[in-house]
C-alpha cells in the first residue's frame, strides 16, 4: 500500500531540505478509522491512511468530500470524533480517549506540533507584520532563535523564494502568489517534517498559480513529506507519489497518479475527473 519514495529522479535540495534532527520513520502519519461530523453531517466516515516519510500525497475529490477536514484534523485544528492520528508512531489525537487521556495526549504531543506545518487557501499571513516578521516571529517564539539567527534564516529562505525585494513590505502590498510564497516560507522556516497544503492555489489569479506550484515542486523534490489538497491535476500527475480520491468522507480510490488519473476504476473517480477536465 505504501509506495516508498526516493525513486523519483533528480532529487536534489533546492528550496530547503527539512534536514531532520529526528526521523519520523516510514510511518510518518497514520490515520486509523477517523470519523468526524459537524452536527448531523458526517464529514469523515472512517479514514484509514498511512503516509511514509518523503511521500507526496495528493488528495482530490469534489468539494465537501472531507479533504480539507482531513488536513485540519492532522493539524489539530479540529478534534476527531473517533479514530486515531499518529505522527511518527505517537498519538496526537485519539477519538476514543476520555478527556483525561486527551489532555495527556495533547501535552505529550506538543513538541510534535511544530513538526506539522500547514499552508492555507487564504494565506492567513499576519497583516500587521512585515514579510520578514511573518517568518521571524515563529522562529523566535517556537524555535527560540536569537534575533540575528531568526533574521538570517528568514532572509535566506525568502530570498530563495524569490522575495528578496519584498522583505519589509506588508503582506497586503504583495500579489496573491507572492503572499502564498511568504506563507510557505513561514511554514518552512520551522523545519517541519510534514507540510499540509489546503487548496493553496484556489484563491489565486490563474496567472499566479504557476509560481506557487513551482515552489511546491521543488519542495517535493527536496524530500519533504507533503499532503496536498488540490484541483491542479497537472501537479498531481507530475509530482504526486500517490493520489487519493475522496468522496462523502471516504477514500474511494487510491493509486499512482498514472493509474488513478488516466485509468480510474471507480465510477465516482471517473465522473469527477470528467467534470474537472471538461471545465
Amino acid at each position: 500500500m505504501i509506495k516508498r519514495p526516493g525513486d523519483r529522479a533528480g532529487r536534489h535540495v533546492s528550496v530547503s531540505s527539512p534536514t531532520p534532527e529526528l526521523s519520523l520513520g516510514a510511518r510518518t502519519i497514520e490515520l486509523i478509522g477517523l470519523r468526524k461530523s459537524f452536527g448531523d453531517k458526517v464529514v469523515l466516515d472512517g479514514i484509514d491512511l498511512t503516509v511514509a516519510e518523503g511521500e507526496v500525497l495528493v488528495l482530490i475529490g469534489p468539494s465537501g468530500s472531507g479533504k480539507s477536514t482531513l488536513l485540519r484534523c492532522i493539524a489539530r485544528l479540529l478534534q476527531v470524533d473517533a479514530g486515531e492520528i499518529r505522527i511518527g508512531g505517537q498519538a496526537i489525537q485519539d477519538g476514543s480517549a476520555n478527556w483525561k487521556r486527551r489532555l495527556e495526549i495533547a501535552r505529550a504531543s506538543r513538541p510534535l506540533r511544530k513538526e506539522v506545518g500547514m499552508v492555507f487557501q487564504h494565506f492567513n499571513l499576519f497583516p500587521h507584520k512585515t514579510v520578514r516578521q511573518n517568518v521571524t516571529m515563529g522562529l523566535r517564539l517556537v524555535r527560540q532563535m536569537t534575533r540575528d539567527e531568526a533574521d538570517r534564516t528568514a532572509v535566506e529562505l525568502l530570498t530563495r523564494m524569490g522575495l528578496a525585494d519584498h522583505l519589509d513590505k506588508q503582506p497586503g502590498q504583495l500579489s496573491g502568489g507572492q503572499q502564498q510564497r511568504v506563507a510557505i516560507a513561514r511554514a518552512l522556516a520551522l523545519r517541519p517534517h510534514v507540510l499540509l497544503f489546503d487548496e493553496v492555489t484556489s484563491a489565486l489569479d490563474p496567472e499566479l498559480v504557476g509560481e506557487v506550484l513551482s515552489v511546491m515542486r521543488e519542495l517535493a523534490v527536496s524530500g519533504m513529506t507533503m499532503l496536498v489538497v488540490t484541483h491542479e491535476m497537472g501537479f498531481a500527475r507530475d509530482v504526486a507519489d500517490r493520489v487519493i480520491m475522496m468522496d462523502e468522507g471516504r477514500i474511494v480510490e487510491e493509486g499512482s497518479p498514472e493509474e488513478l488519473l488516466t485509468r480510474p476504476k471507480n465510477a465516482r473517480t471517473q465522473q469527477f475527473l470528467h467534470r474537472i477536465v471538461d471545465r
Partner: protein
Amino acid sequence: MSFELHASAAYLASASYVWDWGSVFNKDIGHLALIGLKYTLEVCGLSFLIGSTIGMAVAGLRLSHTPPFTQIAYIYTDFFRTTPALVQLIWVFYVVPVLFGIVLSPLVSGVVALSLNAGAFFAEVFRGGIESIPRGQWDAAYVLGYRRRSTLARIILPQGLRQALPATANIFISLLKDSSLLSVIAVHEITYQAQTQAAQNFRPLELYTALAVAYFLLTYPLSLTSSWLEKRFRVH
C-alpha cells in the same frame, strides 16, 4: 441651575440683552476655569484609564466562553448600557455609603461611576475588535506552534485594538462630556464652576456660552483625530 436659567431666558425675550463678556473674561473667573479644567481632565483621564482596564477584563470574560464568566460579563454590560450615567452617578454617591458603609468623596464617587459606565462601552468595543479578527489568524498561529498567550498578545490584540481605536476615541469624547454630570455632586469641574459663578454674577448667558465653547474646543480635535484614525485603519 434650571431656575435661574429660565428666569433669565424669559427676561431676555425682549432681545435687548446687553452682552457683557468682561464679566466672564477676567482674572478671577479665569482662575476658577483653570481649576475646573484640571478637575474635568483629571476625572476624564482617570475614568478612561480605569474604564479601559475594566473593559479589557470584561471583554476577556465575555470571550472566555466559560459559563459563569460570560454571564457575569453580559449582566455588567447590559446594566450599565441601559441605565443613564446620571442615575448611576447618583446611585454610587448616595446609595453605596448606605449599603456598604463606605463614604466616598464626590470626586472618587464620580470617577467610580464614570469608570464603570465607560467600562461597559469599552468592553463592547474591545470584544468587537477582537471578534473582527478572522479565524484564519488563530489557525495560522496555532499551526505554527504559538502558545495561546503569544497568539493573543502578538497576533490578535494588536490587530483587534487597532480596529477598536476610533471607537475608543469616541468613548473618550463621551467621557469628557459626561464629566459635566459630576457638577450635581459638587465636584469642582468646569460645569460646576460655571454654575456657581452664574449664581453669583447673574451672567449665565455669557458663562454657559463660554462653557459650551470650552467643551467644543476640548472635544473637536479629538473627534477629528477619531475620524482620521477611522480612515487610516479602515484599509485591509
